[in-house]
């Protein structure tokens, strides 16, 4: 490979491309890697690239420095991570080595390698994020990298950087049809587009399978999307939108957990009434093994199962956005209660909640039926100035007693827990259910967005002839929370409008609309791009009239489509006559097209007489027509005899390519 004089602007372009490709990784890398990365690239730019002497005399020195940096870097990475494999380590090494490669680049081959490294570095971003902005960002980097590649081949320096970028953008845009064909037809396997390694989702916010005072109110401060739902029919009423998550049975006085392992539901003891609600639920990755579903789910989807307390669970933690087709009934009677579940639904820690137990005993003496006791407690909540707040005072000592008889300020988890304790103390089986309540309707895409601030906790009590009945004590304290959603109950909890826009209704509504449109876009993106698995592919192919295509025929179809589209493009470029402004030229082009279809393609540089002679030489019988048309065309175009235009038009239109009889 020849050494090339790489002009500074191309070197800068390449360096910037590599820097930008690695940039999103920086916060995830050990701090010294970006520092070295920057330093090496800056060094390469600073080193007098024009002074060949420097490179020749200092070659061994630079080589030594490179080897040293590499050894130190690899050792550093190993001490930081404790391993040399895995996603994070791989990317760290890639970033480190790409800057070393830039430093050593001298020959044309080196620069090619750097550009390819850039492409590779760009793609690694997919390991962390697959959002629309990421994709746009990656497209930009790819454009820069492609521009660099074109630049390396532009030996005569015909293009300035802006022209290079334009050219590479054109190239990328032209490749879009092929991209679409590949995307749609490439055989799909189950699972996300990009398999994520184990450590991908270590810190995801969301409902946990344990609850203690403050755990949900903390969650509510996040406006991240938990899941999105599109309903087949109407969206049910806000107060019916209880999204069931983990069911908690066991308490140590402060913390609620599920307790013993959950069993699969064997036989259903549930009676549904009314109409069912069908919907598609697109769950964001939670890294947990449960799925939220509207109360109460009829049946588990294919790769999930129902537990005895009607929680929907999966075998594997959910690490990528996934859609589930579900069907629920909002009115139901749940009768499931086994012997040992009854014991667990009444259990309380031995020595705790003294005051609460005393209070429960009083109630038990006062009222006969469980229904009466429940009503009494709810009334008591209502009459004793309990406050629904996101920022309750800190609870010390026995958290339930402290809350019920002292602070009386709490969020849903306080009420749910306290109510369940009071129930159990009164001898009524009860459990805590966590999940989400409500959701935000996106009118743009007509779907429901459930965010973390919709997190909620409520109670379920067992009544003899009614089964498990949902009691939401929060509804007594703050009816708005249930009926109108958290957006109205605690507006300050929902930070969906920036502070500066709050006082301006036009701006804030505009903000809302933009946010909703973006959310819709995101939803479609997940549904059709990230979630484009075998089912969706089949669905799309069905729509196109292709039924039951297996991966083999799909592959064949893919190649046929790819080959076909390239062929079409080639043919188009070959036969296409550029649109001419001169009418004579236009008619003449039409004439040429007619001949081109029969195999006589006029070369762009072929003059009219030469062309006519070529045609006549092999098609003697056409001589008259071809000669006449050519003569007219020449007269109009080169002799300015515009009055012959009509004659030319007619001659061209009536011209038919006929095979001679002798052929």
């Amino acid at each position: 490979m020849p050494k090339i004089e790489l002009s500074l602007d191309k070197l800068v372009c390449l360096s910037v491309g590599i820097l930008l490709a690695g940039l999103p990784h920086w916060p995830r890398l050990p701090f010294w890697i970006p520092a070295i990365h920057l330093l090496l690239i800056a060094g390469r730019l600073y080193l007098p690239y024009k002074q060949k002497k420097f490179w020749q005399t200092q070659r061994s020195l630079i080589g030594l420095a490179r080897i040293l940096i590499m050894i130190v870097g690899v050792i550093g990475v190993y001490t930081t991570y404790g391993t040399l494999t895995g996603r994070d380590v791989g990317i760290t090494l890639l970033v480190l080595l790409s800057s070393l490669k830039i430093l050593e680049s001298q020959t044309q081959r080196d620069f090619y390698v750097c550009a390819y490294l850039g492409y590779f570095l760009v793609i690694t971003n997919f390991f962390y994020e697959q959002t629309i902005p990421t994709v746009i960002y990656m497209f930009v980097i790819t454009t820069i990298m492609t521009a660099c590649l074109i630049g390396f081949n532009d030996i005569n320096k015909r293009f300035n950087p802006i022209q290079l970028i334009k050219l590479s953008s054109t190239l990328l845009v032209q490749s879009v049809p092929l991209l679409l064909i590949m995307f749609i037809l490439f055989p799909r396997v189950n699972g996300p587009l990009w398999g994520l390694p184990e450590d991908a989702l270590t810190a995801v916010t969301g409902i946990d399978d344990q609850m203690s005072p403050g755990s949900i109110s903390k969650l509510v401060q996040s406006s991240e999307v938990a899941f999105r739902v599109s309903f087949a029919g109407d969206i049910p009423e806000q107060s019916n939108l209880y999204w069931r998550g983990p069911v908690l049975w066991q308490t140590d006085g402060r913390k609620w957990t599920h307790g013993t392992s959950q069993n699969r539901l064997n036989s259903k003891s549930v009676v549904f009434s009314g109409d069912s609600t069908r919907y598609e639920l697109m769950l964001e990755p939670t890294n947990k093994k449960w799925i939220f579903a509207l109360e109460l789910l009829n049946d588990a989807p294919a790769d999930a199962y129902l537990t005895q307390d009607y929680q929907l669970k999966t075998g594997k933690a959910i690490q990528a956005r996934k859609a589930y087709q579900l069907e629920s009934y909002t009115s139901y009677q749940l009768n499931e209660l086994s012997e040992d579940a009854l014991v667990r639904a009444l259990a309380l820690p031995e020595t705790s909640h003294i005051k609460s137990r005393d209070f429960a005993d009083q109630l038990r003496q006062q009222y006969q039926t469980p229904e009466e006791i429940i009503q009494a407690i709810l009334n008591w909540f209502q009459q004793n100035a309990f406050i629904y707040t996101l920022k309750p005072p800190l609870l010390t000592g026995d958290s339930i007693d402290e809350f019920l008889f002292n602070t009386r300020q709490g969020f849903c988890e306080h009420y749910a827990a306290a109510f369940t304790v009071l129930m159990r103390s009164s001898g009524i089986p009860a459990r805590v259910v966590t999940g989400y309540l409500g959701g935000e309707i996106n009118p743009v895409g007509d779907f429901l967005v459930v965010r973390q601030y919709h997190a909620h906790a409520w109670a379920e009590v067992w009544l003899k002839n009614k089964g498990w009945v949902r009691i939401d004590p929060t509804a007594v304290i703050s009816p708005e929370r249930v009926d109108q959603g958290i957006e109205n109950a605690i507006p300050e909890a929902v930070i969906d409008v920036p502070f500066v826009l709050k006082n301006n209704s036009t701006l804030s509504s505009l903000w809302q609309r933009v946010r909703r449109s973006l959310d819709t876009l995101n939803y479609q993106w997940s549904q059709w791009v990230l979630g484009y698995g075998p089912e969706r592919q089949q669905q799309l192919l069905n729509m196109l009239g292709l039924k039951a295509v297996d991966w083999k025929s799909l592959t064949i179809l893919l190649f046929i489509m790819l080959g076909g589209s390239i062929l079409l493009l080639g043919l188009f470029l070959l036969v296409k006559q550029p649109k001419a402004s001169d009418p004579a030229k236009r008619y003449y082009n039409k004439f040429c097209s007619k001949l081109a279809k029969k195999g006589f393609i006029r070369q762009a540089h072929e003059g009219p007489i030469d062309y006519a002679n070529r045609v006549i030489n092999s098609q003697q019988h056409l001589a008259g027509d071809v000669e006449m048309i050519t003569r007219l065309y020449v007269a109009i175009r080169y002799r300015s005899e515009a009055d012959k235009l009509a004659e030319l038009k007619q001659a061209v239109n009536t011209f038919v390519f006929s095979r001679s009889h002798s052929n």
Partner: protein
Amino acid sequence: MNIKEDINDSSINKLNQAIDTVSHIILGKEMAIRLTLTCILARGHILIEDTPGVGKTTLSHAIAAVLGLSYQRIQFTSDLLPADILGVSVYNRENEAFEFHPGPIFSNLILADEINRATPRTQSALLEAMAEYQVTIEAETRKLSLPFFVIATQNPNNQVGTFPLPESQLDRFLMQIDLGYPDAKAERQLLIGEDRRRLIGDVRSVFNAEELIRLQNQVESIQTADAILDYLQDILEFSRNSGNYTQGLSPRAGLAILHAAKAWALLHSHSIVLPEDIQAILPSVIGHRLNYAGEDNHNLTPAQHLIQHVAIP
């Protein structure tokens, strides 16, 4: 097919007869003969680069003979001086005055043989005369006799004892052609035929200088439509901005192409210029003005490459 020949001029007919005549002397070289006559019509000069013995001298001699022009041959050698070309003033004792003895340049058609064997000083004396149509000797300007036409030949530059013409001097030639070896059939005829020089002696002049000057003036009246000028500009543009060539064509080269194309059209009795006319003369007009940039790994000459890459608008 042939588009209608729409000029009916007895001089042109005679010119074509002349081409036939010369073709019978220089066998198989009709294109070169036509280009040479085109060059004369366009008031240009022609440079023939080829190895010795392919008929350069015969060609120029034959053309001079059929056109009825006065002919001088100057053999360039390394000791040739400018005065040997232009002429010199000699003291005449009888008149007691200097008397000018015109050099060989005072003829209609000059064959400057092996021009690159002379020193640059001598070369430039000739080349200046070619550009100015006059020479200045001892502060006295003397007009050359019109029509004035130079056929220069040069040996390939890699031969021993040559002073290559610089680009600026090459530019003074409207065309550069090479003759090349004759094909087998022409060569056989040459071998069995009569002596070429004797044939030239038999040539009867069908033409005279006045007729030639009239035709030279008529070149100007050949029409060039906008479409042709567009094509010419596309050619110039491509040569400058495509990055394929070391240096683009100059405006002077553009004028040369246009003028040569007009002359070519006239020679073929056409009153308009067609793209084919431009393509016909282009290799010889720009062959010595255009070079590939970078490594020359093409199997086309730069001019052929240019023609193939510029679409006819």
